[in-house]
């Protein structure tokens, strides 16, 4: 028998060509009793490894291949739980201060040696290296030292990879072992599950080292022998060393399963003095919160809270709720804006604890969607904080729960379509331009294993079909690395708090920001018993706060908490689809929905948030909902018991909570069973599974006295719901924020648009659309000005003054210095004056300021200023160095315009626009379409503003900038393209069906299609706002 003790998975980051599951499956297929996972300097894959090992019935051995400070490798296995702790410590030390290039000091290895089994490593191990370099005595000394430091736990690793000098190396190692009494162990240094995966392994090596397949390199694998072979192949490779084979089994027998899945590592909440019971304390907080939230706590509410608290206590999540309450309470006490969301908003307890703002009891939301006894899953509470202040909350968590016990959660950037094309294309040495263009045209989010299919389906990829043969390996290899982790990243808001010091549970490593993170992503963290809290930063929260601040800066007030939830002016604005900038409601699909829905209450917004999702659109739920909401179709219920459940959505199954309630009411499912049903229906596509659930539903419904036909029809409703349901609590949490931002947009548009610009990038649209919307509402948006702008956009006299922050590449410290100097010593008089007074103002920043017109008020001749800039910079340098000056060198710079500029006046309009769009993202001197207008007018194109007066069905010809083209999923599976078109007069949403898209529309997804003409027909679909049904997309040939 033989066991692989040295295996790399895709978690070795471009040095492993197989997923963990495929490695374990291959080991099981080869009847291996055990296998070890030894990824490079990480245990990131261990939770998943243990999961698959239990599925396939294999003993998992935990380990890692460590890199020592001298660059040599060492295979380390955890024999005991203490060994695992030591392995975690070693990895933490190796990563400390060495992000991306971990290296372990050898003394640390010896200091934390207990419970570890060490193998001398691959060819890059220190001992093999010394042997290969014919430094026999040093090799012997090193082997002796390790033998002493790891008594009975150090092995010389023989490799059966059939590389040059492998046979000789193995003979030398065997002799060394014999001489020192060190046992041998056989290994195949596995990097892929099967030999056929060799090209993937080779291409990953090329990607890792930045070379092409035509470049010879010692980093590339030489042959396909590093696969997960069986015992027979091992016997062939190591026929001369039977003891080395036997030792693989002995080591496997020694190694314990050291990673425990599904344990609970959440800490106990530290109770205030005098409190003895966490459960009693939580109850007290909840009742106190209930009295704050409700004017009267009635019996029904009391029963609900008791029910929820009972489940929380029985599942052992009292401490979890107390910790989350503590964090939310900290934010409240510091006036940090936040909102809990997700299924946690189904909890009345969470509402009373001020974790969420959704009245779960009042809305009749189902707590079991969040937590249930049968499911007994870990709760998942997400809280959005003001993005500018989220770090304060994080600091509080570290401070309160201990530096040793808190860490951030990792996330892995994986190979997807675009990244795989770029990486594999470069490694295959395909022409750079071709690869770049191809990657740009691949639809966003395309999986790397669906690229070939895309080539046939997507019209804008048509030109590349001619390269099909050239791309054969590209598709194949991209598919081979699909979903493989590329590198670690920091999860946006995930944080774990552990009862045990984290170094005993996992390794830790620094993120790019310097925060300590575990190497596990959310799922892996949960597998090992760590509970993740999502403390997210939401720019919308910051925008709200900023809008309030801007209001206050004008000595006016804005009480966000007191915003009435029934403001009809706000609903009318929503009904007109004028919602650019509004949280969750600004996409073209949402705007189109609002014009048809004509919302007049918050419930409409809750439904809207849930309706514009892939599921309801694919499930054709939108139209029936709208017809019933508007009274165009009668609302009927198949069974009287459905009325209280579906009443608020006019008989349409829209929310996940409704499915659970239907199952509990009609078929008497327990809440946990019903949620299980909801989950299966949401995720499973298997007809057999669906049929089994259907049978269960019908049987239980029959027992509950519901007629078979009615039960069947009800089941067909919830079956149709499969995959598209949305959590009502989540929708309600979002809807409140959405409505309130719409209120700000209606009543405080200047402050709101300025705040949105200050949080950019946020939301759906680019800056030029936000500015266009503001201008459309009659708000002046003034450009960046050296003497008027500040870092952020601000509001003065009802106008928005753009801030320097929007300027590409601008540095906050430099701008702060510039503004401070201006405030201290008065306005700048010229470019040269600014250069002299702010020595940190470098050439590039000055150039950018000139290009966007920041000096226009002092001298509008941008070309002239750019021409003189190098001279002024030299002059500044000379002044600083006290060098003699030419008599008139600074004259023009000091404000005079007497110096000849050699004919360099202002820049042409087109260049100004190009500069402004590329540096600020919006035209400040004008709009791109102004350049085309004479041609457009001559050729029958009308300004977009004119479409407001066009009749339904009118044929029109318009042109504009293409904004946010996208292809959401549709019910029919056919492609429908949505985009907006913006010209100097306004913006219109457009729809393009598949035939047009295939014939002429694909250009909108290409760089050539940024400005196009569109021939189409006006549609209003029940609302006031015109929509353009595209017939033809026309490239603009104007000779510009």
């Amino acid at each position, binding site marked *: 028998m033989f066991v692989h003790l040295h295996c790399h998975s895709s978690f070795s980051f471009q040095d492993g060509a197989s997923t963990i599951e495929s490695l374990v499956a291959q080991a099981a297929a080869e009847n291996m009793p055990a296998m070890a996972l030894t990824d490079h300097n990480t245990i990131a894959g261990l939770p998943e490894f243990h999961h698959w090992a239990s599925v396939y019935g294999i003993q998992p051995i935990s380990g890692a291949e460590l890199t020592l400070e001298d660059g040599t490798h060492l295979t380390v296995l955890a024999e005991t739980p203490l060994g695992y702790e030591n392995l975690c410590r070693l990895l933490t030390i190796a990563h400390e201060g060495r992000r991306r290039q971990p290296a372990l000091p050898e003394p640390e290895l010896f200091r934390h040696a207990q419970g570890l089994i060490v193998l001398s490593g691959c060819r890059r191990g220190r001992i093999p290296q010394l042997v290969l370099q014919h430094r026999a005595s040093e090799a012997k000394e090193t082997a002796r030292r390790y033998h002493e430091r790891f008594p009975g736990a150090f092995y010389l690793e023989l490799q059966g990879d059939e590389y040059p000098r492998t*046979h000789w190396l193995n003979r030398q190692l065997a002799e060394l072992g014999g001489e020192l009494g060190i046992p041998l162990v056989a290994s195949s240094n596995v990097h892929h599950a099967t030999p056929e995966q060799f090209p993937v392994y*080779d291409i990953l090596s090329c990607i890792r080292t930045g070379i092409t*397949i035509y470049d010879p390199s010692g980093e590339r694998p030489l*042959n396909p*022998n590093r696969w997960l072979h069986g015992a027979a192949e091992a016997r062939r490779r190591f026929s001369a060393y039977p003891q080395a084979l036997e030792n693989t089994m002995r080591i496997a027998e020694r190694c314990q399963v050291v990673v425990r899945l599904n344990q609970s590592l959440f800490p106990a909440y530290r109770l205030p003095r005098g409190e003895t019971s966490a459960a009693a304390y939580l109850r007290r907080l909840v009742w106190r919160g209930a009295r704050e939230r409700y004017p009267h706590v009635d019996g029904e509410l009391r029963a609900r809270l008791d029910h929820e608290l009972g489940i929380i206590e029985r599942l052992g999540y009292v401490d979890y709720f107390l910790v989350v309450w503590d964090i939310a309470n900290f934010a409240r006490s510091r006036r940090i804006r936040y909102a809990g969301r997700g299924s946690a908003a189904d909890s009345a307890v969470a509402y009373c604890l001020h974790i969420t703002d959704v009245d779960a009891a009042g809305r009749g939301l189902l707590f079991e969607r969040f937590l249930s006894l049968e499911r007994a899953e870990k709760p998942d509470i997400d809280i959005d904080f003001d993005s500018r202040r989220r770090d304060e909350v994080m600091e509080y968590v570290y401070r309160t729960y201990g530096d040793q016990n808190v860490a951030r959660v990792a996330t892995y950037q994986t190979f997807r379509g675009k990244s795989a094309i770029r990486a594999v294309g470069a490694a295959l040495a395909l022409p750079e331009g071709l690869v770049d263009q191809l990657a740009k045209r691949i639809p966003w989010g395309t999986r790397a294993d669906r690229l070939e299919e895309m080539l046939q389906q997507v019209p804008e990829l048509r030109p590349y079909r001619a390269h099909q043969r050239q791309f054969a390996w590209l598709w194949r290899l991209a598919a081979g690395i699909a979903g493989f982790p590329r590198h670690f990243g920091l999860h946006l808001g995930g944080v774990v708090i552990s009862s045990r010091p984290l170094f005993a549970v996992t390794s830790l490593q620094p993120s790019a920001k310097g925060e300590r993170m575990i190497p596990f992503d959310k799922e892996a963290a949960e597998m090992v018993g760590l509970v993740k809290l999502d403390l997210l930063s939401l720019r919308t929260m910051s925008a709200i706060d900023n809008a309030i601040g801007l209001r206050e800066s004008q000595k006016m007030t804005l009480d966000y908490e007191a915003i009435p939830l029934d403001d009809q002016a706000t609903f009318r604005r929503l009904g007109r689809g004028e919602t650019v900038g509004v949280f969750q409601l600004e996409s073209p699909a949402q705007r189109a929905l609002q014009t048809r829905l004509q919302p007049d209450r918050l419930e409409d917004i809750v439904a809207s948030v849930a309706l514009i999702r892939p599921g309801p659109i694919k499930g054709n739920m939108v139209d029936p909902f709208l017809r019933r909401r508007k009274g165009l179709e009668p609302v009927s219920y198949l069974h009287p018991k459905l009325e209280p459940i579906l009443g608020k959505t006019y008989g349409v199954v829209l929310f996940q909570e409704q499915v659970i309630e239907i199952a509990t009411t009609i078929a008497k499912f327990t809440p946990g069973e019903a949620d299980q049903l909801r989950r299966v229906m949401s995720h499973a596509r298997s007809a057999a599974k669906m049929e089994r659930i259907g049978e269960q539903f019908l049987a239980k419904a029959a027992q509950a006295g519901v007629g078979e036909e009615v039960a069947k029809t009800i089941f067909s409703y919830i079956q149709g719901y499969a995959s598209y349901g949305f959590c009502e609590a989540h929708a309600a949490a979002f809807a409140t924020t959405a409505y309130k931002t719409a209120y700000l947009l209606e009543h405080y548009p200047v402050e709101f648009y300025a705040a949105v610009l200050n949080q950019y990038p946020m939301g759906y649209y680019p800056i030029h659309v936000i500015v266009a919307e503001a201008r459309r509402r009659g708000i002046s948006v003034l450009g960046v000005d050296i003497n008027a702008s500040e870092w952020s956009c601000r509001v003065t006299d009802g106008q928005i003054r753009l801030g320097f922050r929007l300027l590409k590449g601008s540095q906050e410290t430099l701008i702060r210095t510039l503004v401070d100097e201006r405030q201290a010593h008065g306005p700048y008089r010229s470019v040269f004056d600014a250069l002299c007074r702010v020595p940190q103002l470098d050439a590039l920043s000055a150039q950018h300021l000139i290009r966007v017109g920041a000096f226009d008020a002092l001298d509008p001749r941008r070309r002239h200023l750019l021409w003189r800039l190098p001279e002024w910079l030299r002059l500044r340098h000379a002044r600083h160095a006290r060098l003699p000056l030419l008599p008139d060198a600074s004259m023009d710079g000091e404000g005079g315009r007497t110096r000849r500029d050699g004919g360099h006046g202002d820049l042409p309009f087109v260049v100004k626009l190009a500069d402004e769009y590329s540096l600020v993202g919006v035209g400040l001197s004008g709009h791109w379409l102004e350049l085309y207008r004479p041609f457009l007018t001559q050729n029958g194109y009308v300004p977009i503003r004119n479409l407001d007066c066009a009749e339904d069905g009118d044929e029109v010809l318009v042109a504009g900038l293409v904004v946010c083209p996208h292809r959401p999923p549709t019910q029919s599976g056919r492609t429908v393209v949505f985009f907006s078109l913006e010209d100097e007069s306004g913006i219109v949403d457009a729809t393009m069906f598949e035939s047009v898209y295939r014939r002429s529309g694909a250009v909108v997804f290409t760089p050539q299609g940024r400005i196009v003409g569109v021939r189409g027909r006006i549609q209003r679909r029940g609302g006031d706002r015109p929509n353009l049904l595209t017939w033809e997309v026309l490239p603009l040939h104007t000779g510009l």
Partner: protein
Amino acid sequence: MTRIVRRPIQVESWCARMPQQFRDQGTLYRVADWIDIWREMGNWWEGEGERWMIRVMTVDGQIFDLESSDGRWWLYKVWD
């Protein structure tokens, strides 16, 4: 110093599937020792498969790398 030559040779006698003597451009070489043997993958993207490489020392003390794939043999490298 080494020279890559990669020219076909005829292997004329064998021992345990290893060449014992081979002829290169009319000259017969007798193998005194096999120094090393390893496997290399060819240009997989061009459909090439694996090949065996064998480093041999001839009775007159010369060292050669021989290459074998698809039943054919080449003198791949000469060690001067």
